[in-house]
């Protein structure tokens, strides 16, 4: 398995749960690494149902949004579902301004999101 530097990955009830190592996602090199680790999870490791837990994330920039959009596409192409949870209000506002809250499946917390996978 490829080593992840930017993401903590675990498997819960058949769902790949991903947490971010960094509190702030803004540096270009860091965002490229996150994008690569996302792509590896889907393409190299064949993970399809994925939950992004944002509990540690305090800040993200618009280029990080691009990686989330790409991951959403990759997961869909792999026949899976991407869900997100534990998003703090400031970041929810970014999703609301950009209307990405309409594109992404956002749940309150990890149990809510996991339950949605089993429906």
């Amino acid at each position, binding site marked *: 398995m490829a080593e992840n530097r930017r993401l903590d990955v675990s498997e819960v009830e058949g769902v790949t749960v991903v947490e971010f190592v960094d509190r702030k996602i803004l540096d270009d090199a860091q965002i490229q690494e996150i994008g690569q680790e996302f792509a590896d999870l889907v393409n190299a490791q064949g993970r399809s149902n994925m939950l992004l837990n944002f509990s540690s994330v305090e800040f993200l920039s618009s280029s990080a949004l*691009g990686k989330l959009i*790409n991951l959403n596409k990759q997961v869909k192409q792999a026949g899976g579902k991407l869900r997100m949870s534990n998003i703090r209000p*400031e970041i929810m506002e970014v999703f609301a301004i*950009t209307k990405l809250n309409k594109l992404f499946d956002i749940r309150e917390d990890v149990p809510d999101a996991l339950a949605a996978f089993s429906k």
Partner: protein
Amino acid sequence: MSENNEWLWTLAETIPSESEQGQRIMKLLLSKLEEHQWPMADTFGVHLSTEEALVNAIKHGNGLDPDKNVQVELNLGAKRVSIRITDEGDGFDFDHLPDPTLEENLDVPSGRGVMLMRSYMTAVEYNECGNSVFMEKVLD
């Protein structure tokens, strides 16, 4: 600005087109916003907008060219912050950017920086050719 004499902190610096330099400026601004007790939510918006403008200048405007510089002017007051960022690029057509919130653009991975700046700041203005942005946030 008519309030020049009321600034608590100002910075005028020319930096090379390196993202580390942008990060250093960002950290400085954040520490000053905190020092002068700007509200958390407004600090988040100023942080995001300045970050977007710096990345636009360093990466898109100057194309990370080490021979090109970015001019940064920051002025911070108790209830007002102004930011001017100028690069050496050709600029861009800031008035005709695609709307990233349209249904057909929602899954386009780029093109949200300027709209976020406009959402969070009180004013966002570009010079005619689009290689210099002036932004201001005024607290209620």
